[in-house]
Each structure stands twice: as structure tokens, then as C-alpha cells.
């Protein structure tokens, strides 16, 4: 794959993909804080949003280090899906 396309796709993953992952993490963290740490819902949402920055940061570093661009996007999508599942299960509980 040509270098410029590679960089562009990775940058898109770092800027937008990571943001999507961060938002997804802020949703997924809510049931974790509520059920594992026993927080109130408001605190869980508050903390979840704060910790989503960590996921954003990790994803940026990740998108420039993974061996192939396709793997980057595949992994981001996969993790977002897992986060969505966690949010969905949290809603049911």
C-alpha cells in the first residue's frame, strides 16, 4: 500500500476512529463503574467520561504502531463493538 495512503488512513484512525472509540468507552465504562465499583449512576457517567480520554490516547498511539492499517481499523471496530455490547448488557442489568 502506498505510503501516503497508509499515513492518511492511520491519521484518520487516530483522529476520528480514536474519538469514536473514546465515546464508546465512555458508554461502556458506566456499567463497569456501577456494578464493579458500586458507584451511583451519575458518578459512573462522570468517571466514565473522564477515563474515556485514556482510551483516546491509547488508541492514537496504537493506530501508528500496529503492523498494518487494516488491522488498525479492524481492531478499532472490534473494540467499539465490544464496548457497545457492554453498554447494552449494562442497560439490561
Amino acid at each position, binding site marked *: 500500500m502506498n505510503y501516503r495512503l497508509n499515513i492518511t488512513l492511520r491519521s484518520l484512525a487516530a483522529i476520528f476512529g480514536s474519538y469514536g472509540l473514546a465515546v464508546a468507552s*465512555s*458508554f461502556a465504562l458506566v456499567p463497569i463503574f456501577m456494578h464493579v465499583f458500586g458507584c451511583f449512576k*451519575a*458518578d459512573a457517567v462522570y468517571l466514565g467520561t*473522564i477515563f474515556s*480520554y485514556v482510551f483516546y490516547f491509547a488508541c492514537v498511539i496504537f493506530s*501508528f*504502531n500496529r503492523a498494518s492499517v487494516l488491522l488498525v481499523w479492524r481492531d478499532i471496530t472490534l473494540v467499539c463493538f465490544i464496548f457497545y455490547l457492554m453498554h447494552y448488557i449494562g442497560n439490561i442489568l
Partner: protein
Amino acid sequence: MKPDFRRCMIWLHTYSGLLIGWLLFVIFVTGTLSYFNLEISQWMKPELGSYKSSDKLLNQSLSLLSEQTNKSQRWQINLPTERDNQFVISWSIPDVKRAKRFSMILDSQTFNEIKVRDTNGGNFFRTFHYTLELRGFGGRYIAGIAAMVMLIGIFTGVFTHRRFFKDFFTIRINKLMKTLTDTHAVMGVITLPFCFVISFSALLIYISIYVPFSAQHHFDNGYRDLNKLVSTSLPKVTASNIAVEPIKDLMPFVNTVKTYWPEKAAIKSIVYEQPFDSNGRILVYRNPLISLSNKAEVLAFHAKSAELLAPIEPERTARVIRRIFYGLHEAHFATPTLRWLFFFMGVASCILIASGLIIWLNKRLDKVKKRHLGHTLVERLNIAGIAGLLLAITSYFYANRIIPLNIESRAELEVTTFLLVWFICLIYSFIRPALKAWSEILFFTALALLLLPLVDFLIEPNWLMQALEYKNMAYIGFDLALLFSGGVCLSIYKWLKGVIEKPEAKNIKSEIKTKERALC
């Protein structure tokens, strides 16, 4: 992408730094100036005179407030402090939609109203560094992006250095590029915790607009509802509808407050809610010197009975985390020593960013055989973004002194001067040869900075004389800072002139020439 982790990080450091460098420099310069926001405002509102405070201020304010109107539901007295010499009384009158607020700035000796010139003062720098004068156009989002990229820059920057601890204390002075690189490295090392805290706290401050989705999904009114659920506050005053005369003496309250808050000048402001009602309440706000959290500490009293009311309940951890980061960012708690230390670290961060941009350009010009538009753009933006910004800030101070007092929207005119001078520098940096543009703009800045205390003295000598008499360190300190900054700019200018004129020391150009000859 690249063969190993470290090289990826170096690549990321280089390009993220390049993309956001000038914006970050602007934000850090104006942000660092904001540490002395109140002191700068003191210099820019010289009519306020020098700070003198006494306990008489409180009771006299009460009588002044009761003279204003008997319909008010809220009185506020803001006491002057060493940092903020404004003595303000304000009152609000309920109206159809929103209460109307009135305020008067008073002289703390005569209690006459002072007409202060219309200016933003130091607050311009504070609001600029997070809104970028683009308040309705997403300035806060741009600043937020800059904060996140700074975090990336900090983290990746650690990896660019191969011998992190061995080169901890090293600044080589034999060659220009090595000095710049080592300066960049040392500045990076010393400001590592500072920049991390500042950038991360910046992201947390506006978290409600940066990552609002979770709150919007879980609560009807999004972050507003969330905030109400996690924050604690005093209950609202319920009016008993029994009309009374407002109290006239605040001394008993002050004495009680002194037992809880033993430090000197503990009281920042006093609010008297429902002054004409028998359920009136006195709120005393503490000067934020003790706690890192940005939650205002307040003691509440029943006005008529002087009884101490129940304190605000402490907030839970989640909310406190954001409060502490917010407090760390604003640093209201900083004593003068600590404030100068923060200022030093802020200046070091600015040097970090500026040196990074200059290093990028010089390294790239060394490698490349033919320059293209991108290199010229970076070169000129470096000049306008770094030197031009300094000249623009100086012109803002000049505008404050020179623009006549009775002009409409004077405050906006000062800001326009700042932006206009910066824009002129941008054009200037494109039409002159690079090194000359650097040295000329720096020379103008140095001259302007060194002359400003003199100009200020010529316009109205009384301001400086009064400041010296009352040892108003804010005013005197500002003049000294102008002279010091002017001196620094002048020495950089002199050094640059030496670099331009000495033919052997034209390191960049001669290195390229010798390489070209070697290739032929």
C-alpha cells in the same frame, strides 16, 4: 508503520508537533500570561490606584448598598486583595426574566466611585487562551484538540531521546543546532509533569463539550443534569416575607470567620442574600489559597441571628477529581513564590514549543536539496507565530495606554490592535528574508518593551509614583517585567545579528553549500 516503536513515536512527535506547534505556542504564551491576569489588569486599569484595605470597608459598603435601592434581593461586596485591587459592591434587582445586576467600583479610602477605563485587562489573555477569540466559532474545540495533541507530543517526546537520564542535565553550547536540541530536551524534561497536568486538566475543564454523548444519553438535559446530581451546594434562601432592615455590622461575622479561617486576608467576598427579609443570609467566601479544588469555600450565617448555618456537604470522589484538576489548571491557590514557579514552567513550555518548531525547520532544510512551499510556509509562520505574537502582545499594552478613554468599545479596539499588529507581522515575515525578519521584529519588540514604562510614566507619572509609595508590587513588577523581557528580546536580537553578519557562523547556509560541493 516504521520498524520499531521508538521510530514510530519519533515520527508522531515530529508531525503532531509541526501541525499544532504555532497554535500551541499561542495558547501557552497567553496561558502563561494568565497566571498574572490580575496583576496585568492592575497595570491596565491604573485609575484603581494602589491597594489599601481595612476592616472598615465592609460596614461602609453595607451602608452604601442600603442607600441604593430597597428592592434588591442580593448584595455582594468584593474586597480588594494584593492581586486584585478592585473594590466592588454590586446589587441585583429582580426583573421579569433575569435579575438586573448593578455594580460600582469604589475607592477604598474615600468610598467614591472610580471610573475605570473600558478594558479587558489581563483577562483578555485568559479568555484568548481557550477561546482564541473564536467564541461562537468553535474556538474552545480547537483549543481542546491542541491540548490532546500536546499530550501526544509529551508522551512521544520521551521516546525521541535515546539517553534520557544521561542527558538530563546537558546543554551543549558548541554548535547552534545542538544547543537548540538540548534546550528542547531539557525544557521537555523539566516541564513534563507541568505540561501533562495543564493539558489533561484543560481537557477535563471542557469535558462537557468535548465528550458529551454519554451524559446526553443517560440524562435528559445532558451534562447540566449530571452536574446537578454530582455537585453539592447550599439550599436556596426561602423568603419569609417579613420585611426587616438589613444588618449594619458585619464585624461579628468576620470575627467568627477568623476562628475557622486563621490566615491573613481570608475573606474574598461577602454575599448578603435577601437583605430586606428576616430570613436574610450572609455568605462569606474564602480566598482560594488553601485548597487545590476549585470549589469555593463558603461559610453561611443567618443574617439576623448571626447563627452559623450547616456547611455544604462534601462532594464524592468523581466530582472532586475534576475539581482538583480544574483548580490545578487555574492555580488560584498559588502564593507569589509558587505563582512565579508556575510562570517559569509556562515560559519553559513556550521555549520548548518554539525551539521544537525551529529545530524542525533547520533539520529539514539541512536534509532537503530543493525547498518547496511547505518549508517556506513553516519558516514564515515560525517568524509570525513566535516573534510576531510577542510584538502583538506588546502592542496590546500600548493600545491600553494610548487609546483615548472616551472612545466607544475601547476594550474591543485594544483587542483589534493586538490582532492587527499580529497580522501585519505575518505579512512582514513573508516579504522580508527570513533571518532579517526575525531580527527586525525582535528589535521592534525589544524597543517597544523597553520604552513602555517610560511612555507610561510620561502619560501620567502619578500612577507609578503612587505604586512606588504604597509598594504595589503588581504595578512595579509589571514595569520590571517589561524591562526584563525587553532586555531578553534585545539580547536575542544582538545574537541573531551576529549570526547573520559573521560569514563562518552562517551554519545552515554554509553546511548546505559544503554538502552541495561534496555531491558534485
